């Protein structure tokens, strides 16, 4: 028996390597190509599962999961299945940036989306630009359209605060009153409301006669209410976080059954809170902004019904499995709609993998509108590729019989304002 081994020569090794290289270059590796083309598209979801945004996070996860099922049932994106990797950011900006890196470089997600709270978005956006990974936010903040962020950060699924308040101010001043007192949280989100709504009211011939800023650490609000001037015609409130129910209840206790001004609030003050809770009876007859109507309206579209059913929300905006579990209905549609916008942009870009991330951003920047339908149940939107910002319809609802009934819906044009940035001129 021979033990002779055949040692490869230098020539045979080089020939083999060249042949292998050519095989890879010409794509004659069927199994690899198959794996590439049918491999799932992985999307990272920066989730506020804990921290101040936990109430939103729970429903954002539920909404995104429902949207994912619908998307995959329809064939996914470009025929490829889609996965979402959820990662908790603790509603913290420093952790948000870390989570972004984890999703992009550890979980190898094609892009990341889902963040709502402004400080998390602002803290994370630099990391998106560093890694050159698209970051689609659902935050309402004006930070995207203001030009503060970067080319990789876009907000295609929800209108920003500046547009929201500008579009509603005419109705408020014409129907509720012109002398407004504002109560808002004393941080950037509240300041956006303060600055943009004050300007919008003045443009309508009205006046903000007092601005009451509530420190973010506050847990009781009774000492602020006496600051509301007696000649206030409209009380505008927008509060977020765990103390919102206390705020609204104490506001009710302050006014009791006596005279009170018209009250116009952002539903943020009552997201995930049952409007029929004891102590909130005084809200009857008051008005709220809603990005998306919590109570199913009489003229609800088929898409609206489809969306509610898919997410598992009943006609009052509560979970179908637990009537006490009220959703964050006014905002969470953005977690649904952004996913379908991702699908459209990826398909428009011919997205194959991470190498096409820039193409994805350019394809999204080229989009101008999203039609109402199952993909966009909240309504049609326009999208400004230069400012990376979507503009949708806003709803003003009145509490009648414990339900939020829409009394006004703004047009898309009501929310337009001059561009403050052109991200398309920035390099990648």
């Amino acid at each position, binding site marked *: 028996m021979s033990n002779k081994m055949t040692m490869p020569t230098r020539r045979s090794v080089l020939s083999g390597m060249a042949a292998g290289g050519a095989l890879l270059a010409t794509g004659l590796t069927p199994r690899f190509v198959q794996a590439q083309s049918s491999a799932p598209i992985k999307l990272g979801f920066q989730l506020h599962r*804990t921290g101040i945004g936990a109430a939103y996070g729970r429903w954002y996860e539920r909404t995104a999961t429902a949207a994912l099922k619908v998307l995959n049932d329809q064939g996914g994106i470009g025929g490829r299945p889609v996965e979402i990797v959820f990662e908790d950011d603790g509603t913290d900006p420093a952790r948000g940036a870390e989570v972004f890196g*984890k999703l992009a470089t550890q979980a190898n997600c094609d892009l990341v989306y889902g963040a709502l709270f402004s400080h998390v978005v602002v*803290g994370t956006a630099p990391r998106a630009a560093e*890694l050159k990974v698209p970051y689609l936010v659902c935050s309402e903040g004006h930070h995207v359209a203001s030009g503060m*962020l970067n080319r990789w950060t876009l907000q295609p699924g929800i209108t920003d605060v500046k547009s929201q308040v500008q579009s509603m101010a005419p109705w408020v001043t014409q129907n509720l009153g012109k002398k407004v007192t504002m109560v808002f949280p004393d*941080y950037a*989100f509240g300041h956006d409301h303060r600055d943009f709504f004050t300007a919008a009211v003045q443009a309508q011939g009205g006046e903000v006669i007092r601005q009451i800023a509530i420190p973010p650490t506050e847990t009781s609000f009774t000492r602020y209410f006496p600051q509301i001037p007696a000649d206030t015609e409209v009380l505008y409130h927008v509060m977020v976080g765990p103390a919102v129910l206390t705020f609204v209840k104490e506001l009710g206790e302050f006014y009791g059954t006596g005279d009170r001004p018209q009250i116009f609030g952002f539903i943020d003050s009552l997201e995930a809170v049952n409007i029929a809770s004891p102590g909130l009876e005084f809200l009857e007859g008051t008005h709220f902004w809603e990005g998306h109507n919590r109570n199913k309206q009489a003229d609800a579209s088929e898409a609206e019904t489809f969306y509610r059913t898919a997410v598992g929300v009943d006609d009052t905006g509560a979970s179908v499995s637990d009537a006490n579990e009220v959703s964050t209905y006014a905002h969470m549609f953005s977690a649904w709609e952004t996913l379908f916008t991702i699908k459209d942009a990826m398909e428009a870009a011919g997205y194959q993998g991470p190498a096409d991330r820039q193409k994805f951003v350019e394809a999204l920047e080229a989009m101008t509108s999203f039609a109402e339908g199952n993909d966009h149940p909240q309504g049609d939107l326009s999208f400004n590729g230069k400012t990376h910002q979507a503009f949708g319809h806003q709803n003003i609802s009145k509490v009648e019989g414990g339900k939020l009934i829409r009394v006004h819906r703004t047009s898309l044009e009501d929310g337009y304002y001059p561009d403050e940035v052109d991200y398309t001129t920035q390099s990648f």
Partner: protein
Amino acid sequence: MRDMKAFFLHLAVLAALLAALPLLSAYHVTNVAKIMVLAVYAMGYNIAFGYTGLLSLGHALFFAAGLYAAGMGISQFGLGSAGALVAGPVAGGLIAAAVGLLALRTAGVAFMIVTLMFAQAGYLTVLYFVRYTRGDEGIVLDRAARMLGGVDLSGDTPRYLLAFALFAVALLVNLALVRSPFGRVMIAMRENEARSRMLGYNPYTVKLTALVVSGVYAGAAGAAYAVLFGYVGASLASVQYSILPLLYVLLGGAGTVLGPLLGALLMFYLIDYASSATSAYQFIVGAVLVVLVLFAPKGILGTLRERGLRWLP
């Protein structure tokens, strides 16, 4: 001999950190860079708490002083990265001196409360002057401004190397400090202030000096955080950032030079892995700390030192 052993151990740790760079994935490169910056912050905290016995709950103020000096220096005063990295420790040291002049008139629990109040006032000041600081939302530093000598500090490798350089300098200075005569006096203050006074040392001066050095470390870490990670926000000035260095130091070992790095490393990855597994990760972190306090109250390296490695500085 003991000195050489300790010196080589610290050099070996630095060599390991440097050698890890090509081995780590992009995610961990960024994480370890951040851990090194936070370890510098914790080292500063350790100088005050671990070596001098000053239990402060207000170090976020010093960290934020460096953070905002660098961040606002860049975004509003056109400072370059080099200038920002100098402005940070200067701001941290100055604020620590100002706080120390008043707070060191108290001791023990009162010192904790006074420093906590100063830090809370600093946090609320950041929120109050939102027009300049952008409050909780914070400031994003332009990538073009995060250059140092033509090197883009937002890149993974340059960021890691700058964080490493800062950490290496901070570690070696810390080692030299605690082995210097002044370092011995700091420890003497911690162990028995009355006896130290009797020996002729002025506790107020020693503690103030230690606090200023601690503030310089915290400010340097804050400035590095701003320049390397491009974000400056009020949450980094909150009470959480006063507690974090305390936890890092307690976990790693108070009064040990390497304890802050070990504590920051373990705590960071404990949170990272636990938060992927459960939304109750804070419970897990809490449970670990309870176990630590019960079974290793001197922290990991403090316990090792007690059980044999007596040469550990």
